[in-house]
């Protein structure tokens, strides 16, 4: 993963945050992420994030569960160990439906949770850089990534104008790493130059 430069700004209110996000996008700065203390409806639209493909994944997992249940049960009761249960046919579809349904739900649910964790890069042991200690507490934190074309001072004054406070520059790991916050240092710190205050 790469160590990158970021400009971080804090917002107190989502009513200020929304126009700011729109302004950042029209100005063409590279928005790294926006951290909010609670789910903000419509922020994904404002940030221009693409529609998630989690539904499609869930549908595929569900179909997999359905096929697994039906094929396994019909194999057991027709091929491997045919039993006469109360004179019912060997392929009693109504009796299979509850189990098929359960397995569909189980596959879809577990699969989607795992895919969600994968997409959001959250797992026990997986760590990401925290830009501000209050980013999931009571502040809205907007992080703009600096590229070769962006001027840090310009971004700072831009955020100032958009209503942010506590604006500062950070150099941090953009991806994730394995580790513990209480024991280990952030491993990228070895590579980081001291930030000019």
């Amino acid at each position, binding site marked *: 993963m790469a160590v990158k430069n970021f400009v971080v700004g804090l917002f107190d209110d989502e009513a200020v945050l929304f126009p700011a996000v729109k302004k950042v996008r029209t100005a063409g700065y590279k928005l790294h992420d926006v951290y909010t203390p609670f789910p903000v*409806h*419509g922020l994904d639209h404002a940030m221009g994030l693409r*529609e998630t493909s989690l*539904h499609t994944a869930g*549908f595929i997992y569900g179909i997999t569960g359905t096929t697994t249940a039906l094929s396994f049960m019909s194999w057991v009761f027709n091929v491997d160990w045919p039993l006469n249960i*109360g004179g019912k046919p060997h392929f009693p579809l*109504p009796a299979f*439906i*509850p189990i098929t349904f359960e397995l569909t739900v189980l596959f879809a649910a577990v699969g989607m949770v795992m895919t969600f964790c994968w997409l959001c890069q959250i797992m026990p042991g997986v760590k990401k850089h925290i830009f501000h200690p209050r980013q999931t507490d009571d502040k809205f934190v907007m992080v703009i990534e600096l590229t070769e074309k962006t001027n840090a001072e310009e971004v700072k004054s831009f955020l100032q104008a958009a209503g942010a406070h506590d604006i500062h520059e950070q150099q941090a790991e953009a991806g994730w790493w394995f580790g513990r916050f209480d024991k280990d240092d952030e491993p990228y710190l070895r590579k980081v130059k001291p930030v000019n205050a």
Partner: protein
Amino acid sequence: MMGVGLLTLLIGLFAFQGENATRFWAGLLQNSSFFLLITLASTFFIAATTLAHGGWQIAFRRVPEAISMAVPVLSVILLLVVFSLVFGGKDTIYHWVNTHHVHEDKVLSWKSAFLNKSFFTIATLITVGLWVFFTLKLRNMSIEEDGWDLKPATGKKILWRNTVVAGGFLVIYTLSVGSTTPWLWLMSIDAHWFSTMYSWYTFASSWVSGLSLIALFVVYLKKHGYLTYVTEEHLHDLGKFMFAFSIFWTYLWFSQYMLIWYANLPEETAYFQPRVWGEWRPIFFLNLLINFIVPLLFLMKRDTKRNYTAIVFIAIVIIFGHWLDFWQMVYPGTVKHLIFPWYELGLGLGFVGLIIFLVSNALTKAALVPKNHPYLKESIIHHT
């Protein structure tokens, strides 16, 4: 369309004399109960969302209110139909009304404490009366609130009295549509048979078609430039409701079917014999196809739930599908044979025309937005 309905009714009156009179009454029973229950689902929608303190539906709340204004008229039609069945001296639909027959029949005489003329009459009159009372009450309160001042105290008062009335209605609704009413009106056609799932099954049918009806009117008004506050976010939520309750219907359908299939008791399977293995087999599976498979696959995608044309299409499919469901609930026990339902479809069109007339009339009577409702803003900025 009302003309078509009246014409079919007249043709039916002359065509189905004597032996065939069963079909004349069965068609009326099926259509009047179906359309009464789907308009009543609008009152249920208002009551349930009010009690849950839902805010998103306020922007189009006047639409289900207007649909519920068809309830009194349809109730009168239904009462005329069922009471002429019970007191008309004909026992081809409800064979328990024939007291002579009940004396010879052990099962029916055991059930006679419940299935008798006086209990049927009293229960039907009380439930229908209470439905009409609460429907009118909710509507009148809503219109009255338009004239009030916009103050915090007013908002609290609006919420409080709506919640109380909605709670009262839901108790009545659950005890009637969720329990006795479908037993009396529809299940007693097959008086020997019984299923405790039947009422919830009927409720699920009427509720999902009622939601489709609301969606149709909302889209129609939106496309004609009314309901400016309604966006595709509201439509998305209605679509979710239609999707979820199509699955709920299937759940009840299957629960009723599977237990009877498993136990395989002759007195219970008698209901499914003509439907699954008799002439009604294609209708039975068509019912499952258009009420479960089609809405499931069609409404699964987010884009279809947000698309006006797609919602109109699927709403029509769902309403037709559940009309078919009521058809296969009533007909195998009365008319016995599978026939092309031209008479029933004609009557259905008549009822649709009547509903459109009554609802349009009610829509013109009041503003389309309840401007003093405290949750109106929540509805305007609603976002899924």
